[in-house]
């Protein structure tokens, strides 16, 4: 047996074992944790950057690219991006009496240098011609092939000049003049001419589109660079980039305002239904089923008519109203389901035992616990709303001209899809990218916020 020897020190309280109990990492709130998870998700993160970029494009863009989206640059109609912008200043157009200012070659010749303002043609008499028909083509004349677009016909054999002003582009045209017999049939005598048209602009037009402050600064012969249009122009010469920015404002406004409103309403409605339960829950949810059954498009058109949208006014308000009136049930159902679940949780029972009032229980315990779900629904609702707006504008139920929106721009672009595809491609691209970005972001948020997804990892 050994003798136990205790000292006084042995009776001192042990020092707290700091090392074992200390938190090795800082404690994380729900939101911090979600943010870390979101950051780890590359796809979601890049779509978040896209969404931020889009917001900058919409809000800051017009401050940098300060072009009026409804300014019509008629010198550059339907220009693709990166087109040549050099032009020569000319005098305004004045009627022509057919006198040639420069000598004609044999047959068909130019009376003046050809410009995008006008091509003035004159021709020598053709054998046995009682009249003439003038054609314009994109291809050189080949016997037996069609001569192109007939521009002018006359049965006066002495009328041997014509001024073409129709939609002249700075490119090469092939003009042909064919002799006509007394019956109006082509005699077979054809003279042809290749014409390379130069781009010109008048001083007044240069002032109208804001190239110079005063038309007097320019004199005929001056070289000038036309306005730059990074994404090209539409069918009225309006800058596509500026219109996309202006259109984004409409699209994003509807895309964000409408979901905010209908989800707010859906949350209140669903929370009320879930919390009250019983007969009230039944009644409220059956009503939401009824709303789901309403056809959206018909209702939209009815609402537009009923709200008395005057011609020329944009239908944005009735559009948002219709979306709010028809889209809230999804959010309401989701929130109701969550509330039903949360209502039975221990902490809610505890709070109720401690005398928490109904509004306190809902606002303090229930809704905060559904926030994740609400946020995810919201992110998925945004692209749907943007798409709905684009669709309604596309069928002409949306904004009124000259206000652009991506949908109405697509509608305009589709008419010239084959000749100038950029007018359709850019707005369509913006719609697609926006919808995709919001969808991917919603996906990432769901992964980051949903507790069940987390436990499954």
């Amino acid at each position, binding site marked *: 047996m050994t003798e136990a020897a205790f000292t006084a020190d042995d009776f001192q309280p042990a020092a707290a074992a700091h090392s074992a109990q200390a938190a090795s990492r800082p404690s994380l709130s729900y939101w911090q944790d979600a943010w870390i998870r979101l950051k780890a998700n590359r796809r979601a993160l890049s779509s978040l950057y896209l969404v931020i970029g889009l917001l900058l494009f919409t809000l800051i863009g017009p401050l940098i690219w300060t072009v009026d989206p409804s300014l019509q640059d008629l010198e550059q109609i339907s220009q693709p991006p990166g087109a040549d912008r050099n032009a020569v200043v000319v005098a305004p*157009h004045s009627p022509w009496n057919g006198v040639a200012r420069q000598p004609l070659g044999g047959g068909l010749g130019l009376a003046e240098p050809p410009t995008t303002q006008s091509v003035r043609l004159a021709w020598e008499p053709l054998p046995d011609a009682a009249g003439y028909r003038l054609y314009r083509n*994109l291809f050189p004349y080949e016997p037996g092939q069609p001569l192109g677009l007939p*521009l002018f016909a006359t049965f006066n054999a002495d009328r041997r000049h014509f001024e073409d002003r129709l939609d002249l582009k700075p490119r090469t045209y092939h003009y042909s003049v064919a002799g006509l017999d007394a019956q109006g049939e082509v005699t077979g005598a054809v003279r042809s001419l290749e014409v390379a048209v130069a781009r010109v602009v008048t001083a007044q037009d240069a002032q109208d589109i804001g190239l110079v402050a005063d038309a007097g600064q320019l004199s005929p012969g001056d070289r000038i660079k036309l306005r730059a249009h990074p994404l090209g122009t539409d069918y*009225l010469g309006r800058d596509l980039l500026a219109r996309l920015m202006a259109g984004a404002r409409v699209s994003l406004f509807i895309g964000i305002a409408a979901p905010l409103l209908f989800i707010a309403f859906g949350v209140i409605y669903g929370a009320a239904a879930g919390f009250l339960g019983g007969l009230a829950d039944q009644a409220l949810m059956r009503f939401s089923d009824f709303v789901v059954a309403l056809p959206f498009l018909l209702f939209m058109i009815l609402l537009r008519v009923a709200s008395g949208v005057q011609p020329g006014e944009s239908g944005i308000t009735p559009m948002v109203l219709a979306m709010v009136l028809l889209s809230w049930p999804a959010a309401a159902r989701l929130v109701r389901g969550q509330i039903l679940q949360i209502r039975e949780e221990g902490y809610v029972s505890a709070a109720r035992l401690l005398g928490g009032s109904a509004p306190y229980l809902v606002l303090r315990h229930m809704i905060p616990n559904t926030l994740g779900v609400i946020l995810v629904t919201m992110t998925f609702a945004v692209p749907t709303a943007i798409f709905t707006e684009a669709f309604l504008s596309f069928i002409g139920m949306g904004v009124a001209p000259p206000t652009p929106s991506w949908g109405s721009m697509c509608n305009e672009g589709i*008419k010239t899809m084959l000749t100038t595809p950029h007018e359709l491609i850019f707005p369509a691209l913006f719609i697609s990218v926006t919808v995709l970005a919001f969808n991917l972001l919603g996906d990432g948020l769901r992964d980051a916020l949903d507790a069940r997804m987390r436990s499954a990892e």
Partner: protein
Amino acid sequence: MSLTVAQASDRRGDAAFNRSAARQLGLFGLATLIGLAALMWGLNLLASLTATAGGAPPAVDAANNAITVMLAEEPPQLDSTRATDQVSGLVLGHVMEGLLRYDQRGELAPGVAEHWRIDETGATFRLRADARWSDGQPITAHDFVFAWRLGLDPANASQYAFILYPIKNGEAVNQGRLPLTELGARAVDARTLEVAFERPIAFFDKLTAFATYLPVREDFYRAAEGRYGAGADQLLYSGPFAITSWVHGQSLQLDRNPHYWDQARVRLDRISVGYITSDPNTRLNLFKDEKIVMTGLTAENLNSALEQRWRIHRFMDGSIFYLEFNHREGRPTRNLNFRKALALAQDSGELVYKVTKAPGYLPGESLFPRFLDGVHGKFRDEHPARVRQMDLRAARAHLRQARQELGLDEFPPLVLLAGDNPVSNVQTEYFQAVFKRNLGLDIKIDRQIFKQRLAKMTAGDFDLVLAGWGPDYNDPLTFGDLFASWNLNNRGRYASAAYDRQVRIAQGAMDAPTRMAAFAEMQRIIHEDVVIIPNYERGVAYVTHPRVKGIVRRVVGADTDYTYAWIDP
């Protein structure tokens, strides 16, 4: 040890499992692919079955001697006494024939009337014995008298009633001052029609080719109980074709009318209106796919037509388009200086050549298009129209003056009513920008479909309207009386005693120089009073199926006319 063996065997098993799973997956994928291919093939087969069963016929069906065409819009109805629009005119031109008609060269030719005599006081028409309705009954003089009374009946409210005013008591009957029986048209016997004139008229023969003058049989009209002309069965046909089916909004089918008297001139057995669309891209694709025999070209698809090396035709259809002002009380457009300001602030040349870019259009200069005949040559050559050149300084001065006269600080936004089609959409947005930039005026665009636009025009629910007019008969009066104060087609309600006086002269005088001087005076008043802003004269660039010949385009009468067309073997 045993543990590691088990693990190893597990691993081997895993590998085997993975291989078999991959095989299974591959097989499954293959089966899916084959299944999908089979499904698509089946669907395709089904689609082709339905296409041959009930789908649209090809453009040219030589076996059945039939062609397929399209219409831009559906005729609202085909009651000839109430028809106003071009599409109705086109269809009526195929299924109806009046006393006279226009032939393939655009000359007047005998129709139901075999011969006729016109003098200063009246006309007598002798109807042919073999002219029959599509139910086999003869067309009688009474059918014309009934139709004309119907056209003038105030209860019928026909917008074209005015075109019957040359008949004695026509205007009084239309205004309800005299009973219908007092109209100066009388069926002497079944085959003799006598017409008394209100005042001497120089062009009555041309009028009788117009739709409002077409016959309507009384017993059939009464049996239709107000639905006359609403469907294929609710119409009796007097022309070379008869409508055998009319699916509203979709298609019409016109078959040869076996009771038509002049069978020799009709070479086709069937004309199907397979498509009703105003979308130019759809029409171009239909033509490219050989679904329709003719289509017009727009600025957008002109280049693709050139690249296809189609033979392009051009035709001035005689229609003019203009910006019409609302001259009603209370509208700012009632003010002359305001109208002058708008007229001076725009340039129809720029509109036509740069904005609409439509091949064939000519800038508008006058109410009277270039095809109209004058005394010796063309009216417009004898009386050149005065044209306002764009002048911004003058325009702004007029606007200031208008503001003072109206006592307005700012003009309210103007409502610009327009049709909903690509050309007028571009045009409205152009005008919106031009008037904003040059005059600082706000324009609200009101796009409406055809029927709705007509209703709004009639109600005066606009400040400016993009309107157009095609000739009803080959005389300047068809344009000239458009702005007579009593004309219901004068939607802006322009009223001027001086203008009305000239219209009366042109209506009553028999000699060309007096009448042409009156038209020149009207042209001057229109210009100086700025009743309208002429936009353009419409021309059409179009392509036709190479095997279909004899398609007639005409300025006056039904355009396009397929009744003379045939299929080249």
